[in-house]
């Protein structure tokens, strides 16, 4: 094979290798979750959501270029008290029938710091809740776990990307009972996201066939 033929092949292979990977956050293990906490007089309202999906484009060589969208099914939000859950899903609060998705679409990263396989950054993007979209910046931590997918899902080989984020939103910014029940339910909501996405490598997909 002539050198003129090899060079394009090598450059193509390098380009494929260096291309950002797409991580799918639909977790077959059901571990991905978002936790929310609101202060209330008797006890804080602690709940979680498990219906996490979405994709994130991540390049281990260039974490600063990370973009993506995480979607949480509003219906999957749950609290231990059945009456509170009913209220939470109702038209007066989240109105999950009308607004079935809570999303965060990351557009850019700032203050990116990478150490070993972990990257911390401030992600700026659009957070949509209760039909209201608002641009927010949240501190995130990305952990890239190369070739660890098979450890979670047998017969699949690939990489994992773990995203963690802790931030606070104000329910009034999203027209959720604006100015109402502030003595009963805090207007601020603490959110904590712990999710893992998988990028199945092309070679491994063929291996599983």
């Amino acid at each position, binding site marked *: 094979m002539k050198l003129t033929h090899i060079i394009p092949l090598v450059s193509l292979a390098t380009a494929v290798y260096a291309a950002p990977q797409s991580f799918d956050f639909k977790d077959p293990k*059901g571990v991905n979750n978002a936790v929310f906490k609101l202060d209330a007089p008797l006890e804080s309202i602690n709940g979680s959501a498990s219906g996490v999906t979405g994709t994130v484009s991540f390049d281990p060589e260039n974490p600063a270029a990370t973009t993506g969208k995480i979607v949480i099914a509003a219906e999957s939000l749950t609290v231990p008290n059945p009456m509170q859950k009913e209220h939470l899903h109702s038209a007066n609060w989240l109105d999950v029938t009308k607004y079935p998705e809570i999303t965060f679409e990351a557009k850019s990263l700032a203050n990116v710091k990478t150490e070993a396989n972990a990257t911390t950054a401030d992600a700026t993007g659009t957070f949509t809740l209760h039909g209201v979209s608002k641009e927010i910046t949240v501190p995130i931590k990305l952990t890239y776990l190369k070739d660890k997918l098979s450890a*979670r899902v047998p017969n699949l080989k690939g990489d994992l990307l773990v995203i963690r984020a802790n931030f606070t939103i104000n329910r009034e910014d999203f027209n959720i009972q604006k100015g109402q029940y502030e003595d009963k339910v805090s207007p601020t909501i603490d959110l904590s996201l712990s999710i*893992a996405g998988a990028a199945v490598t092309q070679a491994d997909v063929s291996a599983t066939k």
Partner: protein
Amino acid sequence: MKKSLRILALLAVAVTAITWIATGADRGWTKTSKDIKTLDEVTGIEGITHKPTFIAGVDFLALGFGGAVVLFGASFIFRKPSNKPNTNQTQTKHKPNQQLNQPLNHKQKI
């Protein structure tokens, strides 16, 4: 009926208190599930599963005790059935007392 309602009220208090204590004496709201956290060793994420569990809260206590108060209060609606004593007999019984009292009063006056 009066006695039955009072026994029911007592039972309601007992059952409520025992259930509340037995399910952990939780001072928050009643819960029908409990979060179980499991660590995913590969990713380090704590997954949350919801185990159906009844945990009685203060609202359960209030409901139970409130019900007991209502039952106890309702018991006062029902009067104790009277034996309908003979009015003549009672009068004859009281007469001697009155007669006994009269001389005493008379003595006091003296």
